[in-house]
């Protein structure tokens, strides 16, 4: 039998392990820095091709042209016919309502941006936008951003098993002389990882982190004597 020739080079397994460790380390560094692989990929592609190949995609959108509002699951309440501006292509809500956007509920999306255009509070204590919320068996679990003159603040609450949790885990007072009523506002909510950022008319008003809920869709809520209308709500892929 021929004696085995001694091998001095590196084994294929060792090279594979090296590549694997380098790859995992890069991923972990990106995670720790709060960057997503998708963002980095998009930045590199944009740098090479000079084109924005990762612009935000529309995941769900409703401009409320359907008078039956079929894309919404109404838990309680109904579209208001008692609105101040009786415009087509608007969703108006009066008093107490809770409704969930079926498209977003079906997607079970983790990260996204919500844009609600021309949202007008005519009177009452406020309205809320559910995000990362699942509505199952009559119970909501998730977060809600509240435009809440009743609390004289913009707040974010958790909902657990259909229960509204107090106190809100994020709160900022509404500034004095802020046009709360009868003024259209664009509300944007960035939901990325465990970070939630709220903008009103492009101005950042809340920036918080919370780890409780990882995925879920969007919904709307009004309470007390609220009269509220909005023109459009769109869910974009995460920026």
């Amino acid at each position, binding site marked *: 039998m021929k004696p085995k020739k001694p091998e001095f080079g590196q084994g294929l397994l060792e090279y594979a392990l*090296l590549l694997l460790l380098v790859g995992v380390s890069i991923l972990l560094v990106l995670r720790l820095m709060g960057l997503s692989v998708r963002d980095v990929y998009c930045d590199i592609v944009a740098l090479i091709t000079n084109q924005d190949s990762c612009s935000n995609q529309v995941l769900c959108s409703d401009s409320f042209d359907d008078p039956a509002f079929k894309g919404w699951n109404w838990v309680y309440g109904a579209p208001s016919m008692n609105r101040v501006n009786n415009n087509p292509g608007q969703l108006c809500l009066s008093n107490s309502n809770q409704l969930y956007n079926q498209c977003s509920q079906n997607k079970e999306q983790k990260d996204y941006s919500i844009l609600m255009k021309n949202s007008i509070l005519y009177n009452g204590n406020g309205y809320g936008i559910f995000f990362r919320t699942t509505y199952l068996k009559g119970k909501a679990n998730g977060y809600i951003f509240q435009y809440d003159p009743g609390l004289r603040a913009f707040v974010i609450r958790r909902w657990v*098993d259909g229960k*509204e949790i107090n106190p809100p885990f994020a709160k900022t007072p509404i500034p004095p002389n802020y046009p709360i009523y009868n003024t259209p506002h664009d509300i944007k909510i960035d939901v990325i990882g465990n970070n939630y950022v709220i903008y009103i008319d492009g101005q950042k008003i809340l920036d918080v982190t919370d780890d409780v809920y990882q995925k879920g869709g969007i919904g709307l809520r009004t309470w007390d004597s609220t009269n509220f209308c909005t023109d459009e709500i769109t869910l974009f892929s995460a920026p």
Partner: protein
Amino acid sequence: MKLEESPDIQEYQDPLLKPLPDAHLQRRRFRIVLLVLLLITISLFAMYLMQTKKISTFFGTGSIRGVVLDAHGNPFKAEIYVLGTGIKSETNPDGSFTISDIPSGERILVIADENIGNSQSIQVIAGKQIDIGEIRFIPTAVPEP
């Protein structure tokens, strides 16, 4: 070639062929690099776990106990949740409760009736039972100003 032009015998004292590099040494160096990289990856993973608070599950579980009372100081029948863990429980008729097997670390405890919940942070210590005392249930979603 003349004799005086011929190379000196001293020039042939050094071996003609230099020794080959030590292949075992190269292999050892590669393995050291691999080991260092493995340690870096493990450290980064530990930092990531700490950032996401998932590391607490590796450090065991603890338990809590307490009593839920209403605004008048009477025992209150409440549902109890430990957020992010899937743990749900209920108080006994006397308002007392004990919850075991909670992953250690900072947790959010929710005491709720049918519509409203009150949340508070608690610190769960592995292998210990923490008495969080009396909790007054506030049946409103409107916080104190």
